[in-house]
C-alpha cells in the first residue's frame, strides 16, 4: 500500500512522509512487520485458554488437545471478545457512577449536577421518588441504584424497561435478559474456562446476554451519568481534524474515553495564571483538542475541536506541535510513548487502571480533579519552549454540527410544546426517509483509513437512509463534511434532503462517544413506542454497521445491536470464519433468537446494499414499501367517507 492509498484523509500522507524523515515507526509500519498475520487467529480457531495448548484446528487436526472443536473454540473466543468489550464500556460506566456517588457524598466538590432534568429522568427510570424532594437527596439515591446494577444477581437490570414491551418479552422468553452487568461478564469467563460450556449456540446466547448488559446497562448508565454531571449534549458548531492544532499556542490533546479529567482540563485551560504562564513561555494561549471518544465527550458539550480519530493519535505527535497528550482509558496505543520520544511531546497517563511504560503518570483523583488538571496543563505549558525542529500542522479542518443526543433530536422534531419522534416516523412511513442506520466503530490500518466509513455513509444517505453516528466513525464523517446541514443538499437523496432542510439538520447525526451507542437504542425504542413502525425494534427499517472495526468493544456493540433486533454489518474481517456452524448461528440463526442477524461485508458499497435490502425488507413487512402521502381530509371528503 502506498502512502496515498493508506487513507483518504489528506493529513495522513504528508505526516507519513514526515514520520519517515524523522525515523518514526507508525501503526502502518508495525502492521507490515506483522504480515502475514496468523490465519488461525484471524478465523477464530486458535485456542490458548489452557496449558495443553495452544491448539489450532486444521483439516489434519480437527480437535484441540481437550477435544474442543473449531465451533466451540470460535464461539468461546467470540464471546470472550464480547466480555472484554462489555467490561470496558461498563467499567467506564462504573467509574463515572462512582464519581456521581462521591459528588452525592460531598467528596468531589469540583463536579456538580449540570443537568437536573436528566437526573430526574434517571430517577424515574429507577423508580426513585422525585416529587418535591431536594436534588441532593435524589442524587444520592440515583448514585446508589445505578451502582447496584453492576452487582445485581437476580432479576434483570432496570434499563431493559426502556425497550419496547415486545422486546422485553422476547429477551425474557429467550433467557437472555441480563441479571447484572458484572454477573454476565463473569459468567462468560467461567463458561469459557477449560472444560465448562462447549455448545456454540449456548455460548453465543450468553454473549448476547452480556452484550445487552453493556448496551442497556453499563453503556447506558455511563451516558446518563455523564449527562447528569456534564450536561446532555445540544447542537454545537465544532471543528475536526489535525488542522485544529495551533502553531503558536500550547497544544494539549485529551485522548481516551472517560471525560472525568478532560472536563477539568477544559476548565484549567481557562485559568488566568496558566494563560499568563503560557504567554511567558512564548505561546499565544492554550489550545485543547480531543482525540477519539474523550474528544467526542468534550466536543459534544463544550465545542472543543476534535483533532482526529484512532489512527491519528500518533500522527498528531508527528506534527511536532503537541506539548502533551493526556490519556485516560481505551484505544490508546502503547506506541505513543515511543513516538513521543522522537519529539518533545509528553504523554501523561492518568488512570489508576491504565499505565504506559515510558510516560509521565499522574493518578487521577476525583477529590482534587481541578488541581490535578491544572498541574497537567502546567506541565504542558512549561513544555512549549521545548518544541524541536520544524512543526508541521496540516491545514485540513472541517466544520460540523454535533451534539445530537436523543433528547435533542426529540426536541428538534417538535420543540418544547410537542417534542416527539412522530415527524421521523411519518417521514419513514411516507418514504422520504427510507430507514435509519447506526454507523459506528473504530479505524483499522488493514483497510484504507476512513474510506470505508465515508463510502458506506455516502451511499446510505444517497439512498435516503438517515445515519446516526458515534465514535471514530463519527469523527471520520465530521472531517469529511458530512455533518453540516449543507451535506444534505450535496450528498443526500431527494427525500432525506427535504426532511433535513425542513428540520435544519445534517443527514448524518453525531450522537457522541462509543458508550453513547445507548442513545441509538433509546432513539430506536422511541420510534417503536411512537407507533406506526411495528411493535418491536426488529420491526423497524433500521440497521447497524461498524465498517472499520478493530476493538472488542465493537464486537460487544454489534452483539447488543443484534440482540436488540437490529441487523448489523461489520467490515474488515470476521473472527469466526474458521468455524462454519458458529458463523451460521451468528449470520442466520440469531434472527430466530433475537430477530436479527450479523453480516460481514468488507466492501462499503456492498455493505450499503445489504443494509438497504434489509431496510426495504422491513418496509415491505410493515406495508410501507410504496410511497404514500398522508392525506388531510376536509369536510367534503369526510362526508364522502361516511357515505360509503
Amino acid at each position, binding site marked *: 500500500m502506498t502512502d496515498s492509498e493508506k487513507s483518504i484523509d489528506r493529513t495522513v500522507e504528508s505526516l507519513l512522509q514526515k514520520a519517515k524523515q524523522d525515523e518514526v515507526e507508525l501503526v502502518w509500519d508495525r502492521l507490515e512487520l506483522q504480515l502475514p498475520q496468523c490465519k488461525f487467529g484471524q478465523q477464530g480457531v486458535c485456542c490458548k485458554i489452557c496449558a495443553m495448548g495452544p491448539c489450532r484446528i486444521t483439516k489434519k487436526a480437527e480437535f484441540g488437545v481437550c477435544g474442543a472443536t473449531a465451533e466451540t473454540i470460535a464461539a468461546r473466543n467470540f464471546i470472550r471478545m464480547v466480555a472484554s468489550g462489555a467490561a470496558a464500556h461498563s467499567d467506564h460506566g462504573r467509574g463515572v457512577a462512582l464519581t456521581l456517588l462521591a459528588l452525592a457524598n460531598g467528596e468531589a466538590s469540583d463536579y456538580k449536577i449540570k443537568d437536573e432534568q436528566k437526573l430526574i429522568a434517571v430517577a424515574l427510570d429507577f423508580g426513585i421518588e422525585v416529587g418535591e424532594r431536594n436534588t441532593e437527596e435524589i442524587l444520592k439515591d440515583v448514585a446508589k441504584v445505578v451502582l447496584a446494577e453492576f452487582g445485581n444477581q437476580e432479576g434483570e437490570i432496570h434499563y431493559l424497561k426502556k425497550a419496547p414491551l415486545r422486546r422485553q418479552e422476547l429477551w425474557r422468553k429467550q433467557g437472555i435478559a441480563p441479571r447484572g452487568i458484572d454477573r454476565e461478564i463473569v459468567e462468560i469467563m467461567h463458561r469459557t474456562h477449560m472444560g465448562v460450556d462447549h455448545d456454540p449456540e449456548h455460548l453465543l446466547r450468553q454473549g448476547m446476554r452480556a452484550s445487552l448488559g453493556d448496551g442497556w446497562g453499563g453503556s447506558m448508565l455511563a451516558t446518563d451519568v455523564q449527562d447528569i454531571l456534564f*450536561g446532555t449534549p*445540544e447542537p454545537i458548531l465544532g471543528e475536526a481534524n489535525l488542522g485544529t492544532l495551533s502553531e503558536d499556542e500550547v497544544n494539549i490533546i485529551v485522548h481516551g474515553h472517560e471525560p472525568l479529567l478532560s472536563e477539568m482540563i477544559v476548565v484549567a485551560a481557562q485559568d488566568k495564571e496558566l494563560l499568563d504562564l503560557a504567554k511567558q513561555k512564548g505561546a499565544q494561549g492554550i489550545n485543547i483538542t480531543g482525540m477519539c471518544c474523550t474528544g467526542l465527550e468534550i466536543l459534544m458539550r463544550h465545542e472543543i475541536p476534535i483533532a482526529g480519530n484512532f489512527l491519528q493519535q500518533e500522527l498528531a505527535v508527528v506534527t511536532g506541535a503537541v506539548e502533551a497528550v493526556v490519556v485516560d482509558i481505551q484505544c490508546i496505543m502503547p506506541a505513543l510513548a515511543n513516538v513521543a520520544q522522537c519529539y518533545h511531546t509528553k504523554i501523561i497517563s492518568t488512570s489508576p487502571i491504565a499505565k504506559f511504560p515510558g510516560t509521565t503518570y499522574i493518578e487521577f483523583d476525583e477529590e482534587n480533579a481541578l488541581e490535578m488538571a491544572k498541574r497537567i496543563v502546567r506541565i504542558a505549558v512549561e513544555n512549549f519552549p521545548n518544541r524541536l525542529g520544524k512543526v508541521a500542522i496540516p491545514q485540513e479542518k472541517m466544520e460540523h454540527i454535533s451534539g445530537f443526543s436523543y433528547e435533542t433530536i426529540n426536541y428538534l422534531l417538535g420543540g*418544547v410544546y410537542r*417534542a416527539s419522534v412522530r415527524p421521523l416516523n411519518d417521514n419513514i412511513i411516507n418514504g422520504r426517509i427510507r430507514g435509519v442506520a447506526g454507523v459506528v466503530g473504530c479505524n483499522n490500518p488493514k483497510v484504507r483509513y476512513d474510506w470505508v466509513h465515508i463510502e458506506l455513509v455516502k451511499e446510505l444517505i444517497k439512498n435516503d437512509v438517515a445515519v446516526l453516528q458515534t465514535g471514530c466513525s463519527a469523527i471520520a464523517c465530521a472531517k469529511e463534511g458530512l455533518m453540516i446541514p*449543507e451535506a444534505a*443538499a450535496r450528498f443526500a437523496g431527494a427525500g432525506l*434532503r427535504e426532511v433535513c432542510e425542513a428540520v435544519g439538520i445534517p443527514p448524518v447525526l453525531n450522537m457522541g462517544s462509543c458508550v453513547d451507542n445507548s442513545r441509538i437504542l433509546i432513539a430506536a425504542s422511541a420510534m417503536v413506542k411512537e407507533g406506526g413502525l411495528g411493535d418491536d425494534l426488529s420491526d423497524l427499517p433500521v440497521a447497524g454497521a461498524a465498517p472499520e472495526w478493530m476493538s472488542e468493544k465493537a464486537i460487544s456493540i454489534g452483539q447488543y445491536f443484534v440482540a436488540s433486533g437490529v441487523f448489523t454489518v461489520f467490515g474488515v474481517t470476521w473472527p469466526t470464519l474458521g468455524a462454519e456452524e458458529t458463523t451460521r448461528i451468528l449470520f442466520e440463526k440469531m434472527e430466530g433468537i433475537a430477530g436479527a442477524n450479523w453480516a460481514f461485508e468488507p466492501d462499503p458499497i456492498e455493505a450499503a446494499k445489504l443494509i438497504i435490502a434489509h431496510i426495504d425488507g422491513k418496509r415491505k413487512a410493515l406495508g410501507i414499501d410504496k410511497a404514500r402521502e398522508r392525506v388531510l381530509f376536509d369536510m367534503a371528503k369526510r362526508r364522502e367517507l361516511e357515505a360509503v
Partner: protein
Amino acid sequence: MDEPRESLEESCEPKRSEKTYNWRKKLNTREEMLKYLQTAERYWFSQEWYGSERRKTPA
C-alpha cells in the same frame, strides 16, 4: 436524479453565533421538568400508553 438545489449557504450571513443554543435551559422549575418528561418523553414517563404500545398487555 433531481437537479442540484441551490444551497442556502450563500444567502446566509457568514457569521456564527458566539452563544450555544441551550434548549434545556428553557426548563427551569421541577414542575416544568416533570411536565416536559411526561409529554416529550411520554414513551417512558407518561401514565398513559402511547403509540404502538397502547392497548397492549404489559410484558
